[in-house]
Structures are given as C-alpha cells and as structure tokens.
C-alpha cells in the first residue's frame, strides 16, 4: 500500500551524497502526491497495478546464505569469463562478484561508486529516469529507496572484450519483500559494450522487484543491453530502462521475459543527436495466468536517426501479454526512419494480447511503419512436419520454438543467444538441441 512505502521512507537512513538525499525526498513526495496509477491512466490501461498497490511489501530481508558457483553458472551457462556483479535480495554480494576494473571498464556496486565516482554519479544518476510523470511512480519509489545496484562506466574508445553480467537474485528470505535495484550504465564516446541484466529467483515468493536502469550512450558508442526477467512465477516485477543517446550512438536492447505473475517492463530511449540508431527487440513467453506488459518509447529528437522494434510473444493458457510501442518524432527530426513490429502466437483460446502502436509524428519528411500480427500455429507447416513422421504435439512445439527463434537470432552474443534458444526449446519441446 502507498502508506506503507511512505512510512518506510520516514524510517529510511538513506545512503549517498546530500544531493541524492534531496532527490529522494522529492521522489517520495511525488509518489505521495500522485499515488499508484490505475487503469484510468492511459499508460496502465491494459495492466492493473492493483495487485502490487494493494499489497504491503516489507524491505527485503537479507539472504539466508549465498548460492554456490555451480548454481550461478546454471543460470547463464558459458559465462565464466564474464565480468559479473551479483546481488541477492537487493544486496551486493562481493564474494560472488568479479568486478574486473582492468581493460578500460569500471564495474562497481552503487555503494562503492558513492565513494569512488561521486562526480560520475552526480552527472548521470537520476538524470535519465523520469520521476514526475504519474505513470512512472515506480521509478519515483525506486529513486526514493535505491540502496544497492551497479555502476558501469566504459572508458572512451574502449570495447569491452567480454560482456558485463549484472545478476539480481532472490532466495527464500525474499518472500513478501521488496527490493529497488538501481543500475547506471555510462558508455563514454566511441566505446562498445554489452551488458546483461538478469533477474532470476532461487527461492522466495510474492516479492516485488522494482528496478530502474539508466544509461547514457555517448557520441559514436554502441551499447548492447540484454535484459532477462526470470522471476519466481508468483512474484511481481516492475523494471524501467531509461536511455539517453548522443550523436551517432547505437543502443540495442533485448528484453526476454518468462517469469513473474505480473510484470511491467518499460524501455525508453531518447535519440538526442543526429545519426543515432535504437533497436528494441524482445520475447515474452507466458503461461498459466501470467501477465507481462512491455512499454517501449522512442523519442526521435534529432534528424537522421533510425529505430527498429521487433517484439514477439508466445502466450499459453490464460496468460495476458501487452505491448505498447510509442514513437515520438519531434518537428526537427527529419529523415527519421522507424519500424515497429509486434507478433504474437496464441497457443490457447483463453490467452490474450493487447497490442497498441502509438506513433506521434510532428516532422513531415519521415518514414515510420508499424505492424502487428496475432496468430495461431500455421496449419500448413504443421501438416508438412506431420507428413515427415513428426507427431502432432512435437510438431506444434517445434513450430512454437521456431516462431520465437526468429527474434532470439537477433541477440549478438553467441553464447547468450544459444543459451536462450536452448531455454526456449527446452520449454517448448523438452529437448535442448536444434
């Protein structure tokens, strides 16, 4: 309940610099003023936050113990040489982390950054994610309560040789609790980096992860951001990624969502220099009564930029998917080239998708297209497979996997793409080799 968060804030002993404390107070005050959104808010029309708003989440308790390396390795196989920060129940776990600061990239916990990188934080932290919009109060709550998280700074001209893995876990002690992870990614000019942000559960139920990631992508730099939402099936997850792009920069995002009872994932990017590209792709695979809502927003503020979006959903049982893709083209953003696609495969009569493209174009020399399809398994392909001896059930699963694979193939990190393809194939067919 709203009052619970307001009360928790009065007991909070906030960490960090004085300027941040002032922003925390503004953020909680904003939340106090506007409260949780309802479905009357246009941005929450298809997703009621009531299950979160009506519950009371205590600050998440410390983990009962720490997972061993083999448990961590199983969550994302083949990543043993990656830079990694691990958080359990919202708390940084230094003994599980490999924050390799060499090679031109600084990777550290938020608490360490308070001490070591105060000016970097002052320049970027809280500058990208909006706390004023009533639709974004979860960002305001995160801003008020943020305690731990990750800070990544890629130095100018540096290409990170390995991806950076930010792993947010829960264990049994997370039950009924809330954590507010905060991530700041800074890709300095001419740099190139891949960050994998993974939210997964080793235990715990009915907890809330309320995450915010801010990214600044400097002149001529490329940032790949791959986000995995694999929370416990009865958990809640709200995550916002807010990105600021400078001239000639590229931001490539992939959102993979299979977990949580109710999840809301916002991916926002502002293209503030000429010649930028934003590619936002995603895949959600839902079953049972899961609800997953993706909101994307691309703001074309400058000319000669492109944006590409491909979101796919596989919905079974009585699950409910939502995709709302906003594209704003400012009057000065001539020669904008935008394309948005949302394809959904419904595996059950009871599954439901609400898909809504929202293009607001104020420039006259632009190319912006959108398209959405909702379909069922292709009967022609099904007969073809059966005519080769593949039984009906297996053929259906294979076709479902194939639908999902088209968007997974856009993931640039081989080991991750293969890993997620295996995860999807295993979910659909029970085998791991395609």
């Amino acid at each position, binding site marked *: 309940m709203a009052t619970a968060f307001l009360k928790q804030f009065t007991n909070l002993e906030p960490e960090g610099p004085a300027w941040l404390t002032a922003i925390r107070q503004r953020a909680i005050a904003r939340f106090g003023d506007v409260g949780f959104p309802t479905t009357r808010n246009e941005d929450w029309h298809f997703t009621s936050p009531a299950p979160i708003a009506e519950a009371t989440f205590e600050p998440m308790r410390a983990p009962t113990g720490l997972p061993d390396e083999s448990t961590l390795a199983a969550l994302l196989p083949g990543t043993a040489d990656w830079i990694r920060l691990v958080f359990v129940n919202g708390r940084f776990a230094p003994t599980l982390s490999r924050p390799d600061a060499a090679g031109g990239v600084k990777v550290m916990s938020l608490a360490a950054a308070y001490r070591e990188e105060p000016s970097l934080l002052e320049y970027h932290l809280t500058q990208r994610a909006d706390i004023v919009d009533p639709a974004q109060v979860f960002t305001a709550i995160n801003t008020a309560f943020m305690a731990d998280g990750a800070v990544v700074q890629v130095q100018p001209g540096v290409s990170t040789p390995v991806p950076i893995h930010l792993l947010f876990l829960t264990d049994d002690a997370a039950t009924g609790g809330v954590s507010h992870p905060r991530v700041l990614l800074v890709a300095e000019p001419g740099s190139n980096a891949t960050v994998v942000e993974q939210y997964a559960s080793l235990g715990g139920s009915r907890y809330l992860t309320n995450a915010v990631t801010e990214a600044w992508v400097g002149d001529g730099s490329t940032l790949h951001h791959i986000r995995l939402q694999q929370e416990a099936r009865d958990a809640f997850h709200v995550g916002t990624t807010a990105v600021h792009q400078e001239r000639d920069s590229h931001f490539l995002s992939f959102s993979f969502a299979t977990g949580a009872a109710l999840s809301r994932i916002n991916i926002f990017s502002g293209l503030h220099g000429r010649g930028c590209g934003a590619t936002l792709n995603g895949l959600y695979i839902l079953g049972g009564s899961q609800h997953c809502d993706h909101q994307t927003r691309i703001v074309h503020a400058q000319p000669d930029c492109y944006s590409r979006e491909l979101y796919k959903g596989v919905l079974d049982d009585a699950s409910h998917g939502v995709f709302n893709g906003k594209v704003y083209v400012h009057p000065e953003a001539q020669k904008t080239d935008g394309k948005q696609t949302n394809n959904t495969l419904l595996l059950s009569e009871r599954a439901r998708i609400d898909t809504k493209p929202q293009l607001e174009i104020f420039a006259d020399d632009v190319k912006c297209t959108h398209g959405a399809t909702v379909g069922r398994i292709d009967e022609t392909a099904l007969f073809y497979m059966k*005519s080769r*001896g593949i039984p009906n059930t297996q053929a259906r699963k294979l076709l479902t996997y194939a639908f999902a694979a088209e968007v997974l193939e856009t993931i640039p990190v081989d080991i991750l793409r293969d890993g997620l393809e295996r995860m999807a194939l295993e979910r659909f067919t029970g085998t791991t080799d*395609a």
Partner: protein
Amino acid sequence: MIHISDLRASVGDKEILKGISLDVGAGEIHAIMGPNGSGKSTLAQVLAGHPGYEVTSGSVIYQGKDLLDMEPEERAQAGVFLAFQYPVEIPGVSNAYFLRTAYNEVRKARGEPEADPLEFLDIVADRLKLVDLDEAMLQRSVNAGFSGGEKKRNEILQLAVLDPALAILDETDSGLDIDALRTVADGVNKLRRQDNAFLVVTHYQRLLNYIVPDRVHVLVDGRIARSGGKELALELEARGYDWITAEQGVGA
C-alpha cells in the same frame, strides 16, 4: 504395395476425386498425368492425409493396413512419403534438426534405435551428394530462402533420408531447369529398389524421360480416363490432353 479402390474425396461441397481405383506393386513406378484441375495433386494430398480433404467413400489399403484410418504422421512412420509441390518454409527450425527428428520418429516406429546428431550427420552426408546439396544447407532453416530448385532437391533429400516404401512425388518437376531436373531424377533412380514404389504426379512428360514409369494413368475430372505403358506419356506430349478429354465427353 498400395491398393486404391473407388476413392472419392471433396473439399467442402465440391467433389474432386470421383472414384479412383489404382494398384501399385512393389518395385513399380506409376505416373499420374492430367490437365490442371483434374485432381492429381488432390490424390497425392489425400494419400498423405491432408486435413483439408474429406474422403467420402472408397478405400486405400497400404501394405495390408487401412491407410485412411491413419494420422499423417502414422502414414509417414509406416513408410508413405509425399514430396510436396510447394515445400513449406519453416523459419527457425534447422534442416538438420528437422531431418533428424523425422528420421528418428520413423526409426522408432520401425523399432530401430535412434541416431544421435553425429551418427545422423554421417547418414545425411551421403544422401546430400545424391541431390547435389551442400552440407551448409543443414544449418539453414527448413526451405527458408531456398530457390525453387533447392526446395525440390530438399524434398528428394528428405525422401532419401527417410527411405519410404511408397514415395509420392507431386509435380516435383515444376519450376526446375533441365540440370536440376536431371539431378532430381538421378536421385530418384538411385533410390529405386525391388521393395519400394513411386507414384509420380506430373503435368508434363519431360520428367518421365528421366524417371521411366511402368504405368501411366491419365486423370481427367477426378477419374482415371486412360491407363497405359510409358508410350502413353509420349502420346500425351505429342497430342496434348484434349483428345482424352473429348473422348470422355467431360470438360477439363
């Protein structure tokens, strides 16, 4: 091998097959010819179990079993294979996985052990040569982005891997240039044995220069209007279909 008796089939209210009777024995190649819309492809699809057609009467006995009572996958597992006129693209499923899954399902049905990926690669490498396809195609998605010729050769590759007792080729020659046609025909000829049979559906006689049939049947308006030896195909090539249609007194 297969005994088709007075087979009738419809799509909705429209009857397309109007009583087909045909026997194909082991070791034989039969050609089904006929003008467009005569029901050639329907016959092929009905034998494979396409759900879009309703069989209204007649029987099909395949190796002593009631074929019409079997699901499409059961027919395939029992050794019936249809090479599609329009092979289906399946983006996202590799040829290797598709072929191996099909191969293992057929093996399982025969009570034979399944092949692991490495064993299977050996088996398929040999068959690839037969249709002049490169091993790299195994990693590509099934038929996705294939040229017309590649799709047809891929059908014959599947035929070679699955090794059916009864292979039905539905207009496999359509859209093939002469070199591809030779490759496909050579592949089929190498697969001929005394214990298998082929039903070759074609509009043109051209393919039958390379795959020489034992019997030729001409389908007109859902019925077999005439049957004969391989010379019937040559006569059709010279005279067209009109004379048979006229003899039947029906429109094509």
